[in-house]
């Protein structure tokens, strides 16, 4: 970021939430870079930015779409970059229909399931023997026997699987689903009406500065400033960087917010270049690591997907991950998977048993944390482990979280202090309200004290993929243990109890590689675990040597490795995560401090920092380039490209994997080597980001009849009611928008801050931020109390009246926003307690990643403290009754045009879906996911 000429921070309050990282924004600004903060609130980030652009929470795609439209309409896109490095020229299937054609829906939507069939979004295939411009439509040329043989399996799978399964995002790793053939129709002039470029132009044509004014509450002048600043600071000589955090992810369209920024950055040529890109500012010390090596239901290490039901053989599984004929490094998923199976099951994993693939459990739907809580309420879950997390305060819909835990047989909480997740059975809000009685709660609770970060050694992966080793300073006191120690010991005891078992289901546990060297306390050596993650040569002349890179992994059982993308962190038996050459002794990339995956590379896709001929785009933005003399890529970073693949090399359509990449295919993890302006696969809610209103929004979608994302995952239940939307009756009962956030002095749900005297003193109590206009309208007194009521809960908070919160004019009406930090919880143990903002939230999820919409919801606010006991429940129920809430409220999948006042797209009523399909209530367990960015 320090190299950027313009930094747009949107969906993040970086100066307060990542204060030390913000020094690099300050450095950039000191060198003349422009910094723009787009956020509903004026924060300390806004205070040090060149300009703050206030935005209505949840309307980001209108703004980003308008910027895309601005860039396209005014010919401001980086032509050489876009034509060579993106899929702009690729021609899309003739069956594809845009939201402009179907008034808010893409082709392939099934209103019964709420899911898309992605078939019509596919690239148009080039007919092999044809001249190259003739349109194909996703079919295989029957005369091309060789090709058919190559792809037989992928095609069978593609056409054999049922469409509802195919649409579920949680089934894919980060590579998305396979694209089995690298040759597609294209038109480098970008004129063909079905090129991605032309589709993009049409899709965003109504995203105008005036639409931004009406939908986001952003003035035309602010829009012009933003558009001018980013385009003036992009191109050969200059780069613009975007930074986001959970202000983008925690929406029903969160993944599409990020996609919209990716499209803009690709059009401006800002990807893979110094000072460019999109910075995901992650919120926890190793949240990146816990996605890479996932404690997530849908992934195996290294973004390999968990197998799904019906994938009976390893081959079925691998075909779902990638096609061996596709371009790029995902084509070698067989080597990564078999190395993982060897790391876990050792000699029990052999060629003749499919490398123990059958030991892996299978998914048949989404088993995310919110689905699990609902399973708890149904008494389907007996035991729950919670480590370093406080869902009673930190997860959406705190009441449902706590009531779910009250249905468990046993709960293990591992933390430093008695967090609310450990004590809800004695002092939680439901005890106070009388909904639960301690003496009736059957749940056994084990509180296990945990070791702190200085009492154990190991690696965190920070927000830029950098692994840093922590050395152990002291031993844990009393009963405190690291998770490494506890889970190793738990596994050891489980295995010993089952040692005599002949039950086939116990084989994976008994055959598991579970021997680690331990110290005198029985604590396993974390470096031995890191070495296993890195991987080892098992046979051949190098047997026993650590792998130096994932490119050494083999699909023949001769290598083992627990997480392919981390391979190299322990190359030559050296713990590179512990590399600590001081920063001042190194250049700006500091390659000898820690180790970044993959291959200690600091900027991904950095081949794009050079032009198609391999020359830097400019001297000023020089980073990685082709060295003609040495015939290899070189530069200031580890090149993210086959090091000897010359710039002009053609693509070999018969070769898959890295060998299939042409010299100008910089996006080496994409199946076609290009940056995707249009996502033919991988996103389950649309190939192009489209503005939908939030699950709860008092604003009518100004662009389409379709109010909310038709593919969002809803849970229509009486304990998860939503406020009415737009023009529906009762919308005025919850007229304000609330958004949640964190403060510098606290950490998420408070487990690591509300028990610390210093931090508790700095931010002692829960408050809400309101604008002077709202305060005047409702009679809210500064520093007095307010009660905030949503369809799920009512909480109280001290009132902070401030111009930092803006009342915006949206669609000609004033829209009030209420800001709520979410660090406090109700309990008896912390230094500071208070009502939890997350209790107000409902559960509606983004279908790509299963992340809840917690950055925007509907509420009412009134002066005074909230009532207690039965009166509190009566207050919530009174609001629900007045608004006429039912489980169906705001949960229609397809908006009934009768209830929408939208101007609508150019589609005539009656064409295709939009007008014809009645609203259908969603099923409670709609599947969906991938994985991505949190908080």
């Amino acid at each position, binding site marked *: 970021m320090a190299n950027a000429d313009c930094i747009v921070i949107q969906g993040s309050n970086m100066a307060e939430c990542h204060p030390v990282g913000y020094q690099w924004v300050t450095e950039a600004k000191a060198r003349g870079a422009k910094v723009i903060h787009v956020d509903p609130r004026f924060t300390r980030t806004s205070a040090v930015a060149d300009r703050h652009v206030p935005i209505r929470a949840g309307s980001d795609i209108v703004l980003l779409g308008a910027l895309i439209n601005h860039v396209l309409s005014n010919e401001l896109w980086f032509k050489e970059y876009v034509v060579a490095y993106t899929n702009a020229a690729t021609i899309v299937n003739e069956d594809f229909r845009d939201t402009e054609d179907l008034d808010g829906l893409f082709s392939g939507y099934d209103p019964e399931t709420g899911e898309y069939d992605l078939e019509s979004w596919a690239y148009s295939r080039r007919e092999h023997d044809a001249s190259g411009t003739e349109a194909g439509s996703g079919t295989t040329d029957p005369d091309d026997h060789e090709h058919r043989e190559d792809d037989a399996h992928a095609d069978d799978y593609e056409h054999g699987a049922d469409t509802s399964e195919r649409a579920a995002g949680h089934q894919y790793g980060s590579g998305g689903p396979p694209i089995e053939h690298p040759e597609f129709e294209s038109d480098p002039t970008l004129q063909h009406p079905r090129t991605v470029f032309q589709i993009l132009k049409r899709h965003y044509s109504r995203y105008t500065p005036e639409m931004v004014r009406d939908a986001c509450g952003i003035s035309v002048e602010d829009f012009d400033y933003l558009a001018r600043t980013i385009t003036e600071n992009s191109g050969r000589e200059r780069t613009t960087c975007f930074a986001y955090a959970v202000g983008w992810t925690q929406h029903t369209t969160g993944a599409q917010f990020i996609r919209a920024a990716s499209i803009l950055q690709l059009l401006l040529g800002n990807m893979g270049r110094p000072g460019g890109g999109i910075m995901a500012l992650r919120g926890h010390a190793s*949240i990146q690591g816990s996605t890479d090596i996932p404690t997530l239901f849908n992934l195996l290490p290294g973004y390999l997907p968990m197998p799904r039901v019906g994938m009976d053989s390893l081959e079925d599984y691998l075909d779902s991950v990638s096609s061996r004929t596709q371009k790029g490094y995902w084509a070698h998923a067989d080597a990564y998977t078999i190395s993982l199976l060897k790391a876990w099951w050792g000699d029990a994993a052999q060629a003749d048993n499919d490398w123990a693939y059958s030991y892996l459990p299978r998914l048949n739907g989404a088993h995310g944390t919110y689905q699990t809580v609902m399973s708890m309420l149904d008494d389907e879950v007996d035991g729950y482990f919670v480590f370093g997390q406080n869902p009673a305060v930190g997860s959406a819909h705190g009441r449902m979280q706590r009531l779910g835990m009250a249905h468990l047989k046993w709960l293990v909480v591992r933390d430093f*202090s008695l967090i609310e997740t450990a004590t809800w059975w004695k002092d939680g809000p439901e005890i106070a309200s009388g909904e639960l009685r*301690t003496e009736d709660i059957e749940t056994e609770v084990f509180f296990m004290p945990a070791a702190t970060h200085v009492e154990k050694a190991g690696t965190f992966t920070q927000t830029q993929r950098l692994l840093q080793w922590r050395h152990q300073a002291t031993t844990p006191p009393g009963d405190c243990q690291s998770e490494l120690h506890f889970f190793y010991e738990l596994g050891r005891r489980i295995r010993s109890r089952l040692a005599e078992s002949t039950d086939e289901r116990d084989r994976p546990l008994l055959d598991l590689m579970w021997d680690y060297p331990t110290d005198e306390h029985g604590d396993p050596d974390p470096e031995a675990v890191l070495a296993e993650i890195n991987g080892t040569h098992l046979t051949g002349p190098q047997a026993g040597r650590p792998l130096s890179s994932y490119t050494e992994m083999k699909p023949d059982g001769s290598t083992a490795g627990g997480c392919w993308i981390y391979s190299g962190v322990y190359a030559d038996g050296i713990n590179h995560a512990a590399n600590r050459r001081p920063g001042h002794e190194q250049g700006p990339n500091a390659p000898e401090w820690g180790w970044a995956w993959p291959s200690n590379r600091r900027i991904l896709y950095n081949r794009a920092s050079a032009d198609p001929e391999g020359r830097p785009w400019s001297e000023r933005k020089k980073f990685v380039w082709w060295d003609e003399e040495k015939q290899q890529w070189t530069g200031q970073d580890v090149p993210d490209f086959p090091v000897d693949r010359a710039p002009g090399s053609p693509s070999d359509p018969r070769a898959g994997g890295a060998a299939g990449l042409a010299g100008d295919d910089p996006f080496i993890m994409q199946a076609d080597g290009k940056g995707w302006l249009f996502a033919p696969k991988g996103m389950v809610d649309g190939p192009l980001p489209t503005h939908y209103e939030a699950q709860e929004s008092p604003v009518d979608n100004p662009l389409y009849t379709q109010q909310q994302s038709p593919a969002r995952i809803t849970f229509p239940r009486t304990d998860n009611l939503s406020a009415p939307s737009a023009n529906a009756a009762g919308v005025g009962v919850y007229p304000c928008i609330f958004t949640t956030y964190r403060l510098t002095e606290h950490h998420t749900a408070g487990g690591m801050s509300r028990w610390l005297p210093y931090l508790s003193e700095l931010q002692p109590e829960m408050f809400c931020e309101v604008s002077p206009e709202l305060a005047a309208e409702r009679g809210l007194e500064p520093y007095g109390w307010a009660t905030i009521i949503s369809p799920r809960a009512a909480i109280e908070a001290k009132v902070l009246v401030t111009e930092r919160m803006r009342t915006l004019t949206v669609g000609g009406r004033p829209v009030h926003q209420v800001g709520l930090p979410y660090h406090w919880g109700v309990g008896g143990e912390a230094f500071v307690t208070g009502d939890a903002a997350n209790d107000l939230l409902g559960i509606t999820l983004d279908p790509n990643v299963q992340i809840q919409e917690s950055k925007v919801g509907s509420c009412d606010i009134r002066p005074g403290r909230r009532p207690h006991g039965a009166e509190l429940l009566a207050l919530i129920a009174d609001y629900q009754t007045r608004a006429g809430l039912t489980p169906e409220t705001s949960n229609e999948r397809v908006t009934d045009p009768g209830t929408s006042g939208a101007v609508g797209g150019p589609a005539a009523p009656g064409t295709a879906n939009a007008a014809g399909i009645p609203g259908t209530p969603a099923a409670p367990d709609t599947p969906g996911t991938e994985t991505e960015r949190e908080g």
Partner: protein
Amino acid sequence: MARFSFLEWPVIRQLRSSDSLGRGEAVTSQRTREIAPRTATADRVVQSVCPYCAVGCGQRVFVKDGKVVQIEGDPDSPISRGRLCPKGAASEQLVNAPGRQTRLLYRAPRATEWQHLDLDTAIDMIADRFIAARRRGWQDTDEHGRRLRRTMGIAALGGATLDNEENYLIKKLFTAAGAVQIENQARI
């Protein structure tokens, strides 16, 4: 304390010494001169990383007699260049906080209070419960007879504040046990 001397008046000290602006030694008291920072008296300094957000600031952990006495920013870190935010700067209290629990606690069904339990016993109890819950929630196949080989009786949440090595062992153990409902903050 030394005998009073006019020469020890701060303003005289200021004029006598090289600290003519009165910002350093000229205005320090005897008591200040006699104390040493905890960072100077520590036996050992260990390099670590801040456990809060994902910037990954370098920390220096100062240890004396086996106890953490101070945590400071690590100036060697090219990421943070020695700086810490209020949370990172308070992380010594994370280790030594008065509210930190170091004993294992157990709450029996319907009990109104915690009781102490021996760590070893607790792990045994959890291992027994893990096996029973795994068995009770076991699913060999789905309704179409397709293989599932999993249990829905056990769930987990956490990991974003844990080490990679810890998450690796957790995912490995749970997957081998067939427990698929494992989630972390990255979803939230």
